[in-house]
């Protein structure tokens, strides 16, 4: 384990120095159904160590997957690997910037279930069965189905020279399916994905089937797109373009760089009163949940926006040190490179809201009052360009026209544009269809005055 590595670091570092390290071992089993049939099964076994040192007031990092079957720091080969890794971290620190980085001391960790034994125990046959179920339910004339199942069992251990440490085992199952329909030059692909620490229930799988087939049924009819400043319903998946500028703006790193429009807005009402945003590393059943972050900071929920008022930004140890504030426990690190601030489970609503997932019809009950508008499920080019400013403009990948309170059909060749900070000032409605999309929990949102153009 990394204890030997940190012990070695303690001996080599001078007074005032310090170090922290993360070790992660992942075992992944994956099953792939390609174009309607089971094609491949695979395993991945990966282990690596990331080390950071504070040496003569400067920070350096190094990572390696060359940890051998032996643990780093244990045995002769292990000790040799550890010494090489430490050398590289010290070389990195020689060039590194001066920073008053303080490693957290030992603290009590909250309880959170990250590991479900039956997930770890599930056989390959059980994973294939899940895929087979989806494949059978989604197969239809003129369409092709892809399904992928991934089961992870991982062990994470973090520790530092200040005495803090934590270790946890997590499990995760990710199930994704997409249905392709090509008719002439019209290419349509509709997919969904679910993820949990536990194996998916039959209800959850049925939810995936309903979500895909309802969007597919509505997509078969192609209608002309509307035009103008219109009411637009963004589904939980379609919300990415709207939420991305906000989550980027709430990162302490963006605030430090001076590029966050929210930097000076703490305590101010920036969004509609019904808009709250919480990051919850203790959400039950979620694969991003953990008792402590990758820098030994204990997990706790972070209220980012409460009833439209900006509360705080997320920080890891380094950005917190530079901003002379405290880490919010958002340190994320891989095997290579240094930690960066990152979200865990992002919830549109209050902490705890993520426990009530509801599978409802497309539009989440928001369509009723809309005479002419759009429902957006997927956009092209989200994340391109100057995102953090809040302005967006994207062609639609999957969108439907709403007429007289109902879905009239799929629109192609349409684009939507607007400014997130303008649009989120007034939210015309939150849907009753809140669900997890990856590690984000949101309902559909109805926004008014979104520019819709034909092209």
């Amino acid at each position, binding site marked *: 384990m990394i204890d030997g590595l940190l012990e070695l670091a303690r001996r080599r570092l001078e007074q005032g120095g310090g170090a922290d390290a993360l070790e992660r071992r992942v075992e992944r089993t994956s099953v792939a159904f390609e174009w309607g049939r089971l*094609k491949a099964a695979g395993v991945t076994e990966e282990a*690596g160590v990331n080390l950071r040192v504070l040496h003569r007031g400067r920070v350096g990092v190094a990572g390696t997957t060359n*940890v051998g079957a032996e643990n780093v720091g244990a045995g002769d080969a292990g000790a040799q690997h550890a010494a090489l890794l430490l050398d590289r971290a010290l070389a990195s620190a020689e*060039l590194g910037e001066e920073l008053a980085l303080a490693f957290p001391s030992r603290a009590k960790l909250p309880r959170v279930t990250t590991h479900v034994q039956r997930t770890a125990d599930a056989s390959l046959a059980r994973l294939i069965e899940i895929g087979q179920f989806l494949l059978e339910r989604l197969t239809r004339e003129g369409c092709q189905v892809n399904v992928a199942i991934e089961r992870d069992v991982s062990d994470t251990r973090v520790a530092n020279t200040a005495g803090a440490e934590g270790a946890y085992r997590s499990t995760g199952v990710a199930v994704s399916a997409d249905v392709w329909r090509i008719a002439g030059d019209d290419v349509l692909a509709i997919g969904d994905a679910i993820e949990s620490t536990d194996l998916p229930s039959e209800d959850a799988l049925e939810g995936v089937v309903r979500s895909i087939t309802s969007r597919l049924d509505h997509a078969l009819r192609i209608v002309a797109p509307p035009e103008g400043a219109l009411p637009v319903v963004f589904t939980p998946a379609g919300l990415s373009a709207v939420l991305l500028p906000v989550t980027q703006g709430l990162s302490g790193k963006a605030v430090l760089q001076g590029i966050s429009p929210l930097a000076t807005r703490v305590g101010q009402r920036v969004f509609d009163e019904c808009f709250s945003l919480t990051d919850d590393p203790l959400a039950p059943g979620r694969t991003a949940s953990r008792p402590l972050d990758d820098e030994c900071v204990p997990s706790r929920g972070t209220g980012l926006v409460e009833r439209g008022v900006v509360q705080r930004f997320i920080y890891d140890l380094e950005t917190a040190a530079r901003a002379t504030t405290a880490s919010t426990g958002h340190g994320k690190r891989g095997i290579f490179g240094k930690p960066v601030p990152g979200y865990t489970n992002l919830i549109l609503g209050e902490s705890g809201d993520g426990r009530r997932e509801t599978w409802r019809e497309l539009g989440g009950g928001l369509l009723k009052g809309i005479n002419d508008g759009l429902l957006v499920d997927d956009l*092209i080019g989200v994340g*391109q360009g100057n995102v953090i400013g809040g302005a967006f403009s994207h062609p639609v990948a999957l969108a439907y026209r709403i007429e007289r309170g109902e879905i009239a059909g799929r629109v192609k060749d349409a684009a939507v544009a607007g400014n997130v900070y303008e649009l989120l000032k007034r939210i015309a409605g939150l849907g009753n269809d809140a669900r997890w999309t990856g590690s984000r929990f949101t309902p559909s949102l109805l926004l008014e005055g979104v520019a819709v153009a034909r092209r």
Partner: protein
Amino acid sequence: MIDRLTAALAASRADYTEIRVEQTWSSAVTMRGRRLESATASEDQGGFVRALNRGSGWGTASFTSLDQLAAMVVRADELSRAVLLERPIQLAPVPPQRAEGILDLDGDVRGVPLAEKKRLIEAYNGAMLAVSDRIVDTLATYRDEVSEYWYVNSEGAVLHELRPEVTLSGTAVARRDGTIEKGLESIGLRRGWRSVQDKAAGFRAVAERAVLLLDAPTVTGGTYPVVLDPELAGVFIHEAFGHLSEADFVYENPQAREMMTLGRRFGKPVLNVGDNGAASGLRGTLPFDDEGTPTQDTALIREGILVGRLHSRETAAAMHERPTGNARAISFRHPPIVRMTNTYIGNGRGTFEDLIRDLKLGVYACGAFGGQTMLENFSFTAAYGYMIRDGQVAELVKDVVLAGNLFQTLDRIDHIAGDFRWNQMGGGCGKGGQFPLPVTEGAPHVRIEEALIGGDLPND
């Protein structure tokens, strides 16, 4: 290592087995503004086993601990046997190759101290900062790696390669009041330390352009004749057409197969498109792909007609075509899938001036900030552009977004100049969770007779 791998192969019970092992040394230095953000050196190593049995599917195993090699060969075989298939997977024949490929390291980056790499990127970063006090932020990254690579399969292929790579990237952010503009520089080479010296001019140029863009008007949205510079034309052909030519998209999908029938007209006779994994010295170049198939120059569109596609051994067998050396994996963590290498629009005739001479009003779109294709629709953001007025390049414009339908747009390419060049950029291609794969794109100036340009949409 080869002996270890061939011994492991010999122990495999599977009908077909292949093993890849990689050991990669890499380093990276990042500057942000005047600050060093990080300087790291990393070591990554691991292996990948793929097994196939008659009547079964693929079994794969990837691992970071080479001590596990023998056990992983057994796991891959077991996994293959657990996947029962009615229609068997066939592999198109490839004569087994034995080769030792040491690519030109051009100054082995492993021998250069991290401090010196820092000095290099600091200088390029400084070149951007020195342009103007309007440059309020920069990001500059130096990254290199050398990968030692071994590949063996049960048909007798034995490959050993040393693959270098070095990339430089720079972002300059210019600001005046509320207006923010940026310029991007990116250089990516399958070479070493010597090839990234004396590159300050490119960094300076993108910073200067970011400052100029502060005063440039936003392009007026609408339909125009559009001329793409070689960089944007290359990105366009990769994103908008290249991915459709990857045979794993079509080989088992009858509707897709119909859409991509060889012989279908995709463009006017001026249009030639290909993918060349054997081109000399480019980032997407390698002697063999990750199934041991030699790379080659594959024609995809010839005089406007679809004539070929990119294959792995499996897709080639399924479509009764020949493997093209396009089965690639970004690392030992992944199976090889059908990917592009160096994708290009073939050279035409004449000069850039010939393309714009008869245009009364048009847009000259240059460079690429990004692009995405989804199904048959695409959206590309040019780094900058110029209006074309009365046959001449006129004022600088910004926010040039090119969006449209792939089939329509390819068919509207009506003039291609004779000034072909490869764009030696960093970054890479993403597909199926594998990113970034080193690829290159190349093209001459290309004219589209009519395309939609927009960034701003009408707000009422």
